[in-house]
């Protein structure tokens, strides 16, 4: 799978990608003396080319694939176009319309590819070639990335591959990078991605944004996949694994994209608000020595105020549209926690209410668990233990580290130290992040001997 070249700096801001004029500013002028490779000038030019290429990538794949339904062929054609761009642009300067330049090259490659596959040019190909011709002549290439996202998250596509598919087809990440973020082998990830793309082509999944009647359900699958991409990256909170740290940025980029393309969908705004809140607190989640710091003990001055402000504005805007949903509620929880930590004013009652609403939508045992922890802050640990979800009702809880950590914490608070010690044992045994494990071990070691 050829991925687009992408520099591993933070993703380009979306507004820049939507404004064709900005592309011009980035124009690299040809110089009378060509910069040599590895000189700062060459590197800058290369980075600029890579950046423009990256911003155009999803748009071009979506545009090409929407006509052929062949995502893999679109990617192959584009990766050849990008390779050409990266060798041409640094020395000759970026073209005034880089997207049209890339499309022209990619179009030529994809027609070649079709011709190689079949001896005769079918009417379908001629249609495609004509429509691509027309598009290349236009100054603006229609943005079909949203339709592409709906294809990637189509219910006919295996749920677990939707997020990787988006990362590849819309952002151009290669299978190796995705595999490492999703803790699987590149070969296995490639195979699943190929299978998904084959399914899109063979079953003719349509490239379009679903109509009003289907939209709520279909949008959920898109948002869930973006969220899954973020959660995958988030599970390396130490940020020691570059591939996974980058994944949270890529997921935020996708969330920004969906929110920008569907500015009237409150849940799309809610998801972006949620991810921005999480991103804002990332610098405070670890001590200098890499230890895990729980929310209540974080230094709020390390939080990114700008991201928090942006999240709050999004949430406010989403609320004004007036259709509550899971992601808005999750973002509202983040907002409430931030407010409490900054002002010192307890708002646990509000938090319990948000959890109630969230539970009504999701019936998730994890929500019930967090709701119980909020109750602990109002009515004490004994009430919280009584409000905890029943492990027999959902066996998945038995393997859920935070369930055992929460239980241990509450048991310790009522003086049931022996039971608390045991619950900590299970929590530690289930955790894969060494820093969180250390945190739990410290808590466990601090338990007094015997029950009180």
């Amino acid at each position, binding site marked *: 799978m050829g991925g687009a070249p992408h520099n591993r700096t933070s993703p380009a801001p979306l507004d820049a990608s939507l404004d064709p004029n900005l592309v011009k500013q980035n124009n690299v002028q040809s110089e009378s003396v060509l910069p040599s490779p590895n000189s700062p000038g060459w590197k800058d030019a290369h980075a600029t080319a890579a950046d423009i290429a990256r911003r155009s990538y999803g748009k071009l794949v979506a545009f090409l694939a929407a006509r052929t339904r062949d995502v893999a062929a679109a990617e192959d054609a584009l990766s050849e176009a990008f390779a050409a761009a990266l060798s041409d642009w640094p020395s000759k300067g970026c073209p005034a319309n880089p997207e049209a330049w890339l499309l022209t090259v990619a179009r030529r490659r994809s027609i070649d590819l079709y011709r190689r596959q079949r001896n005769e040019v079918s009417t379908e190909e001629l249609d495609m070639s004509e429509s691509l011709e027309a598009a290349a002549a236009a100054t603006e290439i229609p943005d079909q990335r949203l339709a592409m996202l709906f294809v990637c998250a*189509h219910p*006919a596509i295996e749920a677990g591959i939707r997020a990787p598919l988006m990362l590849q087809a819309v952002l151009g990440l290669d299978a190796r990078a995705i595999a490492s973020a999703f803790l699987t082998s590149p070969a296995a990830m490639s195979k699943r991605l190929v299978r998904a793309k084959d399914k899109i082509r*063979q*079953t*003719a*999944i*349509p490239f379009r944004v*679903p109509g009003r009647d289907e939209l709520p359900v279909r949008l959920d699958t898109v948002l869930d996949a973006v969220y899954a991409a973020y959660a995958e990256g988030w599970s390396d909170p130490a940020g020691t694994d570059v591939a996974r740290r980058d994944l949270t940025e890529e997921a935020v980029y996708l969330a920004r994209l969906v929110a920008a393309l569907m500015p009237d969908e409150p849940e799309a705004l809610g998801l972006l608000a949620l991810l921005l809140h999480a991103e804002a607190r990332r610098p405070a989640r670890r001590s200098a020595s890499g230890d895990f710091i729980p929310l209540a003990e974080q230094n709020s001055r390390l939080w990114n105020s700008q991201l928090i402000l942006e999240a709050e504005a999004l949430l406010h805007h989403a609320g004004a549209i007036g259709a509550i949903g899971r992601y808005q509620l999750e973002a509202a929880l983040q907002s409430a926690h931030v407010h409490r930590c900054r002002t010192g004013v307890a708002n646990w009652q509000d938090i319990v209410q948000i959890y109630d609403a969230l539970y009504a939508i999701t019936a998730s045992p994890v929500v019930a668990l967090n709701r119980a922890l909020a109750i602990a802050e109002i009515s004490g640990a004994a009430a919280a233990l009584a409000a905890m979800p029943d492990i027999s009702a959902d066996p998945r809880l038995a393997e859920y580290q935070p369930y055992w950590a929460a239980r241990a914490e509450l048991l310790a608070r009522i003086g049931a130290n022996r039971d608390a010690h045991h619950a900590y044992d299970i929590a530690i045994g289930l955790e894969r992040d060494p820093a969180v494990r250390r945190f739990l071990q410290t808590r466990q070691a601090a338990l007094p001997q015997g029950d009180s």
Partner: protein
Amino acid sequence: MQYLLTLYSDEAGWAKMSPAEQQQGVAAYTAYGEALAKAGALVGSNRLQPSATATTVRNVDGKSQVLDGPFADSKEQLGGYYLIEAPDLDSALSWASRCPGASHGVIEVRPIWKM
């Protein structure tokens, strides 16, 4: 594009239905077939005799091995099919969800391999 909609359901259900219910069931399938035909989507369809009538054939070492019974012995059995014409998967899935079989069984939707 053509898609084959194969209908799987628990055959025992049919025998348990009263004659009135059976009649109603047949009427629902007739109506569905008419709707498909009216929309120009129907290519062909058939209901199959129960899986007890099935015989499987396989050639092993040049000899035909004939066995009584269906290929897969599961609770839900292939009971019929619709071959339809649809512009894309969403349209085919939408036809599948309207089929009465989707309410008392499951429908598999697969594109036809174009030669």
